[in-house]
């Protein structure tokens, strides 16, 4: 747990909200985050706590490996017959009184949801955390349509108030400590008052008080879903605060947005995922609340139910025979909590879709590697393999990263002008191809490098080499080369 020292200014307060286009490459985006020691400390505390809980929860289950194997196989089966499962799901949801909408991309999903909200005449919607709605940029679209969106999770509220980008799948404000969240609440939640303490209980109570009325008056809600059961048309959502229950129970109209990858074939399959997901995400044996709903139920809950099925690049990932396995992901966030790169950079450098190791594969798989930012993601890893070890559905993320690096190289090879790296490598090959050229280069290089260094560290290499120092310092080379030293002392 982090206690912040008095007088520290929120170091991340100046950060802007929506990521501007064009998005910077991972290493460039990570630089300010790496310099933000408060964020790094917050994240380190958060991920370490979750890591310990997850490990304990998995260890408690004697059949953990069997559950993982079943989870992997169920998702693979679901993906390999996705077309028929989607049709089955649509039929079942419709029979139960719901309406299914299909969205080929983010723009279409925004249009569909905005249209549905407009049709109700509501000027405000309550919303429960959903990475999918963030992926499609729904909040901005609704705001442009004159609809106020209320994020209702404690962390999402903090992110919305801070005009921040979320940093963690499970806990979007993991980069903020309690003092920062209290400060945001004090400024933006009038009822909280200036005296709001920064203990978590007080903050949770402030969020509860702030949103209570909004829930009771809400007419339209937007949620995501963790699983879509094809056979029965059932939507399943796991959460802990009860804000999602408020959203999916109290308003008249419920709009749920979910990726087509959320489909599982049968209701019985939930016996596997209701064990895998809680233990991998928060280390709970069971999440405090699990809700499932099938169409509408007279006298209980919304009268209108809409399910928006989103593609937005998922079929592109599906077409990649290696990458396809990334669609098994159940967004538990276990891979984030064990990743040494994520722990230092936080979620934001990964771009707008998904953070952490899974983001580093899902984003380039769904969007392609044409843009420099997306092509940089497969390199945002040490390939240490910790993510693959914890993944409850056995996604081999390192394997996929290597596969994607191959794709990046492939896509660049086709470019008419060689990339800087390729030019550099060619130059290096020429230099190293001849011992005398090599020796001279090393001597000259060492002299230049020492000129660049300050106190024995090089903070930024010039020109093309600058990439290497974007996220690391380099020790200055010694004045003498090893060969030089050898020759001098042994001769």
């Amino acid at each position, binding site marked *: *747990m982090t206690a912040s020292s008095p007088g520290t200014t929120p170091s991340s307060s100046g950060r802007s909200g929506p990521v501007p286009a064009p998005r910077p490459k991972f290493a460039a985006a990570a630089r300010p985050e790496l310099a933000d020691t408060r964020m790094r400390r917050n994240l380190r505390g*958060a991920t370490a*706590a*979750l890591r310990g809980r997850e490990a304990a929860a998995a260890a408690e289950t*004697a*059949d953990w490996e*069997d559950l993982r194997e*079943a989870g992997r*196989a169920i998702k693979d*089966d679901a993906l*390999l017959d*996705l077309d028929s499962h*989607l049709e089955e799901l649509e039929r079942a949801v419709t029979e139960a009184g719901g309406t299914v909408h*299909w969205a*080929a991309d983010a723009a279409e999903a925004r249009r569909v949801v905005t249209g549905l909200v407009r049709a109700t005449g509501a000027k405000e919607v309550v919303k429960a955390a959903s990475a999918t709605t963030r992926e499609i940029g729904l909040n901005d679209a609704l705001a442009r349509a004159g609809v106020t969106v209320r994020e209702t*999770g*404690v*962390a*999402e509220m903090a992110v919305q108030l801070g005009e921040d980008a979320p940093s963690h799948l499970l*806990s979007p*404000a*993991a980069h903020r400590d*309690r003092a920062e*969240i209290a400060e945001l609440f004090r400024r933006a939640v009038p009822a909280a008052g200036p005296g709001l303490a920064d203990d*978590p209980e007080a903050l*949770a109570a402030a*969020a*509860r008080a702030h949103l209570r009325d909004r829930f*009771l008056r809400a007419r339209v809600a937007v949620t995501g879903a963790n699983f879509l*059961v094809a056979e*029965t048309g*059932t939507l399943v959502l796991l959460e*802990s*605060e*009860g*804000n999602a*229950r*408020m959203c999916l*129970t*109290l308003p008249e109209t419920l709009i749920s947005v979910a990726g087509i990858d959320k489909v599982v074939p049968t209701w*019985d399959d939930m*016996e*596997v995922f*209701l064990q895998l997901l809680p233990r991998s995400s928060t280390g709970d*044996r*069971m*999440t*405090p*609340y699990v*809700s499932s709903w*099938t169409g509408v*139920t007279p*006298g*209980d*809950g919304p009268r209108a139910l809409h399910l928006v099925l989103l*593609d937005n690049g998922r*079929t592109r990932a*599906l077409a990649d*025979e290696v990458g*396809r396995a990334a669609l098994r992901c159940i967004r538990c966030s276990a891979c984030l909590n064990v990743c040494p790169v994520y722990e230092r950079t936080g979620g934001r450098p990964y771009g707008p879709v998904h953070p952490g190791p899974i983001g580093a594969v899902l984003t380039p798989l769904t969007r392609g590697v044409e843009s420099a930012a997306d092509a940089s993601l497969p390199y945002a890893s040490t390939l240490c393999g910790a993510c693959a070890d914890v993944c409850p559905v056995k996604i081999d993320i390192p394997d996929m990263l290597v596969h994607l690096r191959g794709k990046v190289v492939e896509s660049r090879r086709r470019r008419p002008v060689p990339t800087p790296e390729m030019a550099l490598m060619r130059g290096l090959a020429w230099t190293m191809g001849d011992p005398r050229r090599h020796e001279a280069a090393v001597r000259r290089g060492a002299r230049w490098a020492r000129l660049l260094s300050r106190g024995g560290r090089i903070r930024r290499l010039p020109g093309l080499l600058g990439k290497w120092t974007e996220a690391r310092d380099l020790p200055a080379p010694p004045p003498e080369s090893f060969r030089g030293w050898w020759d001098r002392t042994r001769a």
Partner: protein
Amino acid sequence: MSSREEVLRRVREALAGSRGARPPVPRGYARRLAAADAETRADVLALFTERVADNRAAVRHVGADEAGTAVAAALWGREAKQIVVPADLPFGWLAELDGVRALADAPAVDLDTLAAADGVVTGCAVAVAQTGTVVLDGGRAQGRRALTLVPGYHLCVVHADQIVGTVPEAVGRLDPARPLTWISGPSATYGIETTRVEGAHGPRHLEIILIED
């Protein structure tokens, strides 16, 4: 082409050449509690009690003829004045109430009344020992979902024979066509420093009365 057709076309194109015979899903995981953990029925109930406590909810064991007293005692303990209950709650559960007004949810009470209530008393459909969970499906003695969501306190009466050992057993007993709510402890948030803190939007207190006979 409609988006529906377009998405389905992309799926089919993406999968062309990848389909074929697949081995069945290996379901070697445990469907029941290991014999070592649950030799007797009493062991299952003990496990349920322990796991509910881990979820930071209180649980009390009572005999069949003590349900009314236990419900009344729990409500007095919370200083409840007015509660809301599903209309079909077993009569005996509320028989001992003294000084606590119980409002039946028929016709459905409005949300403001629900929000002002000091608590709610319900039964459940299934309970899971392994995870310390109660599952409500809107059936007898459970009412609509808003009842167990809006008030700050939920008292849930569980019959011993409603408790199963594992999640697979519970999934097998439940009907997904009904709206289901699985409740494992009081409302909690992970939003602040990713640590579980009790109390957010749902009930802040969950108590369970376990009727053994």
